[in-house]
């Protein structure tokens, strides 16, 4: 397996606060890397750096031998890093189909003046795009809601739509920020099978942040644990579950006395 993303010593400071310190990881093609940690550990901050929303104070993010630090978010997306958000950020007043088409902007070859005239070739491109989007929606079982405004979707499908939208970018790495936050057990299972499907069908490399251990443990190949911005443990799910540092971070230091 080849390394497709190489992150070295990523550090970000907000004023005097070191939010993330020395975060390094080599992401292998096709793996599912989970980043876990208590609230405020800096997980989302790592994502925001990996997608260009925050500029790290120091460190590098390398993809295809190119350092992406300092680029704008849309350039990160163009380099193949697509994400979802912890608090859903859909294009609320656009339909489900349009939400996904919007993520195709980058790949679209429609030109301004032909679009203005709506030439035959533009109509054809729009038609092909629509079919491609519908195929994708069909795969993820959202095709029945295609023409709904995305704000009118229930919560679960909204989360799903965000993932499908990120897939439309045809990314090399999919970053999922708490994909099952606020979901019930049935919905969690559905997202788990959706992620499995994405890995199987699209051979997608995934980095995800999550709190639900029952959700993360079975699907992750590798886990990194953050606490107060520092990486406190790394390894496969089995080792992480036994790691005393991790247990301490989650349960507090006093658990020995009880156990």
């Amino acid at each position, binding site marked *: 397996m080849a390394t497709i993303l190489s992150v070295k010593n990523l550090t970000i400071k907000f004023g005097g606060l070191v939010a993330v310190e020395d975060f390094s990881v080599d992401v292998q093609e096709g793996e599912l890397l989970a980043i876990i940690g208590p609230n405020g550990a800096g997980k989302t901050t790592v994502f925001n750096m990996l*997608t*260009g*929303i925050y500029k790290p104070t120091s460190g590098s993010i390398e993809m295809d031998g190119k350092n992406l630090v300092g680029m*704008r*978010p*849309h350039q*990160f*997306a*163009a380099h193949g890093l*697509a*994400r979802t*958000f912890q608090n859903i*950020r*859909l*294009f*609320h*007043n*656009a339909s489900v*189909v*349009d939400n996904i*088409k*919007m*993520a*195709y*902007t*980058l790949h*679209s070859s*429609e030109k*301004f003046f032909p*679009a*203005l*005239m*709506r030439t035959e070739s*533009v*109509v*054809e491109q*729009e*038609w092909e795009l*629509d*079919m491609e989007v*519908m*195929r994708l929606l*069909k*795969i993820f079982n959202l*095709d029945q809601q*295609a*023409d709904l405004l995305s704000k009118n979707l229930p919560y679960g499908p909204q989360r799903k739509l965000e993932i499908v*939208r*990120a897939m439309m*970018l045809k990314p090399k790495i999919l970053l999922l920020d708490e994909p099952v936050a606020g979901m019930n057990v049935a919905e969690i299972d559905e997202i788990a099978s959706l992620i499995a499907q994405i890995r199987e069908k699209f051979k997608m490399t995934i980095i995800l942040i999550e709190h639900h251990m029952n959700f993360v443990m079975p699907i992750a190949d590798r886990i990194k644990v953050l606490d107060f911005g520092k990486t406190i443990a790394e390894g496969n799910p089995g080792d992480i579950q036994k790691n005393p540092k991790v247990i301490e971070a989650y349960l507090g230091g006093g658990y020995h006395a009880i156990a």
Partner: protein
Amino acid sequence: MKFSKRFKSILPVIGLAALYGLIMLLKSMGIANNYHIQILMFAGVNIMMTLSLNVVNGFTGQFSIGHAGFMSLGAYGSAIITTLILKPSVIPASMEIPVFLLSLLVGGLVAAMVGYLIGLPTLKLKGDYLAIVTLAFGEIVRAGLRLIEPIGAARGMIGVPNYANLAWIFLFVALTLFFVRNIIYSRFGRAWIAIRDNEIAAEAMGIDSTRYKIISFTFSAFIAGVAGGLYAHVVSFIQPDTFSFVKSSDLLVFLYAGGSGSLTGSIVGALLLTSLPEALRFLASWRLVIYALVLVIVMLYSPKGITGGYELPFLRITRKDIYENRGKKISETPLQETKEGDV
């Protein structure tokens, strides 16, 4: 099938021609007079201006409150061509229409160029901050035009040939609607709406927000420039103070009262609110009170504007239309994953 598709696509054109015919008929019967026609022409210019503002404020979600500035650039740009350079006395009568069209193009291009230059540094600003910059821009243009002596400075330009008639206005409103509709339902319009709905997500989805905002701003400024050019050739007299902040705020009222983010809304808002103060003239000084009251009532009872987000069928392009254009039915094709080769 083929015939009905053709028919459907030219239906709006027939409708517009019929409307024009009707107005001309009313005029020949003496029911409509030149005063009514002039109000209609102003309404047409205002529809174009509102559509232009709609592109930036309604679809891209930015907030421009200096749009009269672009209009004045277009008005002056085109008036300079027809009044100072290629004035009616130096060109043959047969060249009047080409010169008129050229002047509108120049007006549009001047406005678009300035829109681009203004947009470049300022579109990184958001919300209120951008609004302040556009406000300042409008005032700079007005103050600047007041200082340029060859174009009449604060006195304004007189004797602009009145080339524009109702037919031209109709044509340009229709063209504007056609172009704006097409661009809204393309990659560009979708990118604008994405930026409007959630700029962070739009960026994360690979949309270069600065670039698309600049395209939106430049396109919008072009339309405003052409509208300004038409205006100059309707009234024959332009002066910098016509395009003050009051004009910009009128346009904002047309946009939001009609319904922002809806092309139908821009038409209804501009048409209704341009003619309403005229229709209320019998109330003398009370008319502005009533006008404002109507606005308050509209916004209270229909916060999304008079049209409430409704779009006339020929002003939107649905997914069904895309398939029908290809001679396909929407239900039969794309859902079957395995039949890719067939469609």
